[in-house]
């Protein structure tokens, strides 16, 4: 029996994402030295898609493990998160579908790190990629 797709973004999708991160050997390896706090991924506000306020996910990642994940709403919900990545829905969709490399998208300015320490992010390029690429393994149902 196939695994049913989970709506993105949602609580269920966020939990499945956390499970996918924990199942990633690459993330376990490259993320092992990461002790710099949680990472939030936020979808830009888009009322036409029902994304108002901004939906997001906060992943509590530490030493190669995702210790917890929360689906949140609004930029105030991610305040205080050490690393925050923001992008329009269409960009996240391309990343989740594996059509766009997340690191290259950051360099192109299509995924924007609005909060965070750039030298640390650059030190952990492989870990960051492994984290985001884990999302490609979540069976996903997109709104459009």
């Amino acid at each position, binding site marked *: 029996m196939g695994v049913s797709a989970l709506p993105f973004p949602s609580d269920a999708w966020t939990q499945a994402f956390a499970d996918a991160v924990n199942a990633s050997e690459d993330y376990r390896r490259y993320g092992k030295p990461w002790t710099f706090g949680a990472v939030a991924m936020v979808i830009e506000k888009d009322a036409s898609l029902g994304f108002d306020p901004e939906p997001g996910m906060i992943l509590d990642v530490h030493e190669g493990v995702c210790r917890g994940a929360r689906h949140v709403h609004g930029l105030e919900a991610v305040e205080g998160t050490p690393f925050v990545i923001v992008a329009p829905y269409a960009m996240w969709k391309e990343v989740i579908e594996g059509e766009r490399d997340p690191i*290259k998208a950051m*360099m*192109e*300015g299509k995924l924007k790190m609005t909060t965070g320490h*750039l*030298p*640390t992010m*650059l*030190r952990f*390029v492989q870990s960051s990629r492994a984290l985001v690429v884990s999302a490609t393994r979540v069976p996903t149902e997109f709104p459009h």
Partner: protein
Amino acid sequence: MEPCIVLAPGAAEQPMAGMLAQLIRANLDERPAKKATLARMRGRVALVFEDLGQAVTLRFERGRVTVDAGIVGIPDVTLRAESELVLALSRMELEPRSGLPDPRGEVTRQVLDATREGSREVHGLLPSLPLVARLTRLLSVTA
């Protein structure tokens, strides 16, 4: 003299220019030894990010760095590669005493292999070796 990092007019629209300026600022704030490295840098370095279709010129002059979008003037050194390989400069392992890239390091080996294979090209390296060595130290997030 305190270092000064300036984005030239129009450079802010190019993500890599902003990212490099932010990286240099953060490194200088957190690792004051890099200020002495910057003070000794003179010349222009062009970084061409082939996969992004972007280029950035870094102009070094007496502790001041100006970051331009595109290639501005005649660079002393031009580094041409895919964006991730260019930014790997910041992750190259450096020998603690000399501050030069350590060929035993994983990232340094990847960068050297890419240069040998031609997927990373450096023009003007030999005459500007000290400038390139200092740039590597300035951008390094590991040392």
